[in-house]
Structure formats: C-alpha cells, structure tokens
C-alpha cells in the first residue's frame, strides 16, 4: 500500500474560491547536533481568499515554523528550506491576471516589499514583539516609512516633493541630510511630514479601538497593558491592509476576557479589510470559534483538514479525536479525562511511518512501516490515516472499524 502526499492537490481544482496562498509539500529542517530535525515535513494546504484557516497542534508540531516560512523568518542556519513551495497571490497579481509568486524563491529585496505590506504577522507575546526602547509612535510609524512613503508624501506634493523630503519619508536620510532638515528652509516641511505620520499612526491605532490614540502614541510598551499592546501590534500589522494576516497564537499571553475582545476585533477588521487569516493556535475550542477551515498538525505533518464544522462534529484522525477528548469540560468526571498516552516522537531523521503510531491505541503493522497520505473522507475533509480507504473514504482497517463507528 503506497500513498503519496499529493492526493490533496485535487482540492486546488475543487476550490470554488480563489486562493491567497497555497503551500505544497513544504519541508523545513533544522540542523542539530543529533541530526537533521524534520520540523515541517511535507505540509500542504491552501488558504482561500477571505477565509480564516486554523492551524492547530501541540507544542513542537511545526505550526509556527510553517507560518514563519511564509515571510522567511526561520533563521538559517540552522534552518533549511529543504523543499516545497509557498505560492502567493497578491491582490494586484490577481487583478492583473498574473500567476502566483513562490515566497521561498523570490529575492530578498522582493521579500522585504511583501513582508509587513502584503503579508503581515501578529506574534504570540506582545511584550516581546514590541521594542521596549521605542515609543509606540515610532514603532507603528516604521510601517509607513517602510511601505507607504507615498502616503506620507501626499500633502507635500507626492513624488514632486524635493529629494531631501522624499528620502526623509523613506527614513533614508543620512546625517548631513538630517542636519539640513532641522534648518529653517526645511524645518517647516519636516514638521509637516511628522504631522502627516502622526495622523497616519493615530488612524491606524484608532482602527483597533484604542481610545484616544494620540495619548498613547508617546507611551512606551511597558506602560501599556497586555491587551493594549496586542492592539498596537494588530494596528501595525493591518496598517498596510495586507492580503494575508498570520496570527501566531495572538491571545495565548492574554486573559480570557481580553482574549475575547481581541478576537472580536480581529474578526471585525478581517471582514472590513477583506483580509485572509492564517490563525495558529494550540487551543481547539478557540479555533472552533473563529475559523472557517482547520488543519490539524502533528509532528511536522498535517493529519487532518476540513471545514471547522466537519472536523469538530466528526473528527476522523485518532489524534484529533484524542485532542478533543482531552479538553476538560462539564461532562467529564474527575480522573476520567481521556489523555493521549506517551509523548511526541523525536523528529530527528524520522522513519517512514505514521508519526502518531507510537501513541495511537489502534496502530497496526502498516502504521509502523508506511507513511499515510491524506485521503478524502468528505467533501472537503481529508485525513492521513490508514483506517480510511483512498478511493471513497470508507473504513478499511478491521481493528479500527469498531472504534470509528
């Protein structure tokens, strides 16, 4: 029984909506002393235009590495982009009828253009993602200097503005120019430029429902609460109206009451700005609340994908089932939580086998020797488990029949 990982490719044709990004057989490895760690090992999924895709998994399953690969933030070395592609359609590309660009292949300069502009990211810990030594104003303003210098120049005559001012609007001034800008003939223009940036920053902060943004612009990150810091980060990320927003556990460091507000905010902004979101989380209940589709990752592989509805009402993979059963709820008796025994396997040079076979209560011989590919088990539901038949998704392994039904 051999299966390939490209089975899922069929979904590309079946998708009725246009795609924003398509990950194909992505492999990201890390060179460690003990060997090569296969952190992401053949991951494929699509992000459709305007949807929220949830990428769920436990610590170390490779979900953050997958997300960071989109904007090439995986440090290299030790990281190695070992294969696969991430195709990305920006709005302009789609309007112009152009094809996708492969984010792993484009030159560094082009990536700088895309990063923070077309693809933006919100990080897990807002305390660490903001620079403690810079004011909120200068950190949000940086996005505009980097990507929106034409907006800054607008009241100063756009591209007809003097070269000195054009360079200032891109933060490219050298020390001599900075000195000149302080002198009377230029000072008024510099002030105007600064005021324009302030307006842009205040508008961006206002978007995230920060009350009285002008008052917090001069604050430093430590002066703000966690929820407020996360709002600043969201303002920064959405300032350029990106096509794709990557949210890497944006609420893990926050309290539940604040978390709910931040998620409301992201959902509202997403609707208004028509941004697609890749939402990464370890919290299944959260993903159920906010995502349209879900991809479940385990040990560097995707084990199940589908619409939120399908995956949560009828989980197919033993891992997904185990994960959902392990969430405490009112239905559980104390001491009777369904835990998944064992621990995540080492990802150093892993053998060809189902990654979950060491913890799966239903594993049989084939699980230990062959790699299961994703098979279709529903309209948009795929699963990587030998229990299901490749052709029609019916249950084939006798040991599992009883469990599945």
């Amino acid at each position, binding site marked *: 029984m051999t299966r390939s990982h490209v089975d899922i490719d069929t979904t590309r044709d079946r998708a009725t909506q246009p795609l924003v990004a398509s990950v194909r057989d992505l492999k990201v490895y890390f060179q460690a002393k003990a060997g090569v760690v296969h952190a992401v090992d053949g991951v494929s999924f699509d992000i459709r235009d305007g949807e929220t895709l949830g990428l769920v998994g436990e610590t170390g399953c490779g979900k953050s590495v997958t997300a960071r690969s989109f904007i090439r933030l995986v440090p290299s070395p030790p990281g190695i982009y070992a294969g696969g592609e991430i195709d990305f359609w920006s709005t302009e590309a789609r309007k112009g009828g152009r094809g996708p660009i492969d984010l792993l292949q484009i030159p560094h300069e082009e990536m700088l253009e895309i990063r923070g502009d077309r693809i933006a990211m919100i990080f897990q810990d807002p305390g660490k993602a903001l620079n403690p030594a810079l004011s909120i104003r200068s950190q949000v303003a940086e996005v505009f200097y980097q990507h929106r210098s034409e907006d800054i120049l607008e009241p100063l005559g756009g591209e007809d503005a003097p070269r000195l001012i054009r360079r200032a609007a891109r933060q490219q001034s050298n020390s001599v120019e900075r000195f000149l800008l302080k002198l009377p003939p230029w000072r008024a223009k510099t002030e105007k430029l600064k005021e324009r940036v302030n307006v842009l920053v205040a508008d961006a902060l206002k978007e995230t429902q920060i009350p009285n943004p002008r008052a917090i612009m001069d604050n430093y990150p430590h002066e703000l609460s966690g929820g407020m810091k996360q709002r600043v980060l969201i303002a920064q990320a959405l300032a350029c109206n990106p096509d794709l927003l990557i949210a890497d556990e944006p609420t893990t460091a926050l309290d539940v009451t604040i978390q709910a507000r931040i998620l409301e905010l992201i959902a509202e902004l997403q609707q208004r700005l028509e941004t697609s979101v890749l939402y990464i989380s370890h919290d299944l209940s959260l993903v159920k609340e906010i995502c349209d589709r879900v991809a479940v990752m385990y040990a560097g592989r995707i084990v199940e994908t589908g619409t939120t509805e399908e995956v949560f009402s009828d989980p197919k993979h033993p891992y997904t089932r185990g994960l959902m059963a392990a969430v405490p*709820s009112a239905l559980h008796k104390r*001491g009777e939580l369904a835990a998944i025994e064992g621990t995540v396997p080492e990802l150093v040079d892993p053998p060809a086998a189902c990654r979950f076979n060491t913890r799966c209560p239903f594993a049989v011989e084939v699980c230990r020797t062959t790699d299961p590919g994703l098979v279709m088990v529903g309209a948009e539901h795929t699963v990587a488990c030998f229990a299901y038949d490749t052709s029609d998704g019916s249950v084939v392994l006798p040991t599992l029949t009883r469990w599945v039904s």
Partner: protein
Amino acid sequence: MTSVTAEQGGQPPTAAQRAVISVRGVEKYFPIKEGTLQRVVGNVRAVDGVSFEVRPGETMGLVGESGCGKTTLGRCISGLAPPTGGKIYFRLPDEDAATLDLIDPIPESDRTVQQRKQVERIDANHRVDVMSGKAWRTYRRNCQIVFQDSFSSLNPRQLVKDLVGRPLQVHKEASGQELTERVVSLLESVGLGRQHLYRYPHQFSGGQRQRISIARALALDPEFIVLDEPTSALDVSVQAQILNLLHELQKDRGLTYLFISHDLGVVRLMSDRIAVMYLGKVAEYGTAQELFEDPRHPYTEALLAANPDIRAEVSVMKGLKGAVPNPANPPEGCRFHTRCPVATPACGWEVDDAVAWLQARELLAAGLADVQRRSKFDATLVFHDEESASAVVRAIHDGDMPPAMKAALETVSTDGSSLVIRFFPVEPVELEDVDDGHLTACLLHTERRHQTWPPQTSADSSSRTAANPSSTSTRNSSTR
C-alpha cells in the same frame, strides 16, 4: 482548655477538625518605594482581605485572571511569603476556631490577659507565620507546593534522584540505599521509573518534569498540596495525563489540594469548591456546581462567557471592556464596577472613573489641565479654558457618560474653567451569603439591591468630604 494546650499542630486530623487550612482576612501588600531614601509611597494590594477554609480531602479551586493575587495567596498559604495582615491557620481545631471567632472582633487593646494568652497559644500551635519550631516543622512536611513552570522550579544541575530525594534528606527520613529505593517508589507513583534516576531535568519533556515536581511534593507524604497552575505550561493531551494523575494521587493518599488556575474548565473539573478572585478580593465563592450553573457575580458570568467551549453547539465569546485596574489604587465600592456590564449607581463610581472616561475622549481630554482631588469621590477638574469645561458638562448631560456613572454624581458645577464633581460616597462591597454557603460580593444579588438611590445625604458624609480638603493635587493630565 488545658487538654488542648498540650496539643501540637502535628496531630493527625481528627473528627473535631473542620479545616486543614483556615484563611482569615489575609492581606498581602507589597510596598512601592521611591526616591533615594526608598520611602514607601504606596502599596500594591495583591491580596486584600481574603477568608476561606480548605477542608480535609477536598480540592479548593482558586480562579482569576493574571494579577488578581491568586498566586500570591498560594505563596502566603504555603509559608513562602508572610502575609502583611490577617492570619492563616493550619489544622485549626473547631473549638479553637470558635475561640478565635469570639476574640478576633475585639480590638487588641481591649482584650483580657486570658484572651491574649489563648490567642498566643493558638497562634504558636497553628498560625502559619508565627508557629513554634516544632509545629513549623510539622507544617513544612505537610504542606507542599507544585509550581507552574517546572523548568525554573527544578534545579538544572541536580539529578532527579537528588531533586526528589532532597526533602527526605532534609527531614532525615532516609539515606543511602533506602533513599534511592524511596525515590524509585515515588517516581513509580507518578508514572516514571528507575531508569530516570540519573538524569537531569532538561532531558525530560514538560509533562515529565511536572511529574518530577509532583513526586518531590509527595516525598514527605504531605496532607496538603498547593498546586499553582500545574498544567498551564502543558499541552492539552499532557494536561489530561497530569490532571488524571493528580486525581488518582488524591484518592489514594487522601490529599487536600488548593488548585490555582486561570483555566475555568480545568478548575471546574478538579475542584469541589471554588473561589473566584478579582483584584485581590474574592468576588464569588461556592461549590463548583453552584458557581458554574448559577453564577451570582457579573465577573464570574463574564469569565464563563469569555471562555470558549469546545462542546457547545453555539457559543458566543464575549469579552470585557477595559483592563484590570491598578492594584495599588483599587476602585472604590465593588472593585469590578469599572468593567462591569451591569454596574449600578451604587457600585462605587469615583473621580478616577470620571477622569478615565474623560481621557478616553480625545477632544475632551485635550482641554484638561489638572485634577485636584479632595477625596476619592470629590475633585475639581481644572481645564485650560471655559469652553472645554462646558463641553465636558454638555457631554455628561448628553448621555455620553455611562448612565450608571451619571446617576452616581451628586454634584456637577462649573466655576469658570474649573469643574467640581462629587460622587455619592459608597461603602466597599463585602462577601455575603446568598444561598446556603454560596457567597458573592455583588450588590445585585444581595439585599442591598433594594436600597433606594440616590442615598439620603446625611450630614455625616458631607462633613467628611468638607473636612478633608488637604489632599493635594495629583497627576498632571495634560495630553500635549
């Protein structure tokens, strides 16, 4: 009473013993120091008057958001940090508890010699922070703690054998071969084994490290364990393993737990009774079932509403506006009123709330120059010009101000560019029994909801505000 005098804290629990831990009005303030002389300019009230009891064999849950003081309280109870006020007792017999109930309300100076002696004796035997040496040793054996972050609570340079065997060595329980065997049996009881004896903490996964922490806590066969967020650093599948293990150990060894967590689902599963904390105070207290099925405090309701439920058919996550107020300057009345969706005029509106409301409005805040406070409820807002002052008055009357806050205003009067605002002063909201052991600190669920509003202005309250004009102006709120 003489027979009890001989009693030491070391006695095993008897039928007459109601609580393993009795927390009575515990306060923990952290001083804020400033200047070269490090003068104390204020206090962060991390825990501000908390009382409850933990009964033998039960799990008491302590739940709340970060910064509500639940960890600090856990540290006070386990003797790691002395409380700055209030008392914590270990194995307090019922009769002594009754004695204390009688004596505690009497001020220190009015007590008779006999009463003082009684308190001294009880304190020496049972009160955690002033215990006599022998009682203290017994307490240390019987109260253990498991911390949240197993990485920083296990010494990275020690082997598992030394980590788990350390309490046995310190208390001279075992040594040599016997020690090793005891450690092995402890490791086996938490699902590890002999093969793990000679490894360092970094060689284990998070779940395994937490098991080592639990084994260490069990080493002296304690009666009571403080579990400070034992699973919040773990993945959900491993969390389930640890929670099951904790329950099994409790069943087998008759342990009593204080379970501290911010995760409502976990607390609900593990606890018999739960205290919900907010800003250093207990907001609601009751059995797990009461609390989850019939919450009597808006904060508990808000926590439940914000918690996503994986098994709910449809659930709407709802958050709370605003942030947790500064515990160095907690709100008056009910501490939750600044974020409460159902706050009434009687909930403790004060000058700080009005200033915060003002500062959230860019146009109004721009004109504010200074706030001169006479009391928490009475202040003069000084504006740059008359126009800004009258704009604020208009905003107050046009319904831009929350109706509850507006109704709590006693007077609003302008005098040129300054605006005097005075709120009706209110008393702090205390916990009240609303349903046979179900306690809540919310006006809406107690008898006080029937009170008339506005309150009768007594001469007493007005003289108090008038007699206190010495408070200096604070905080320059200019937003230039």
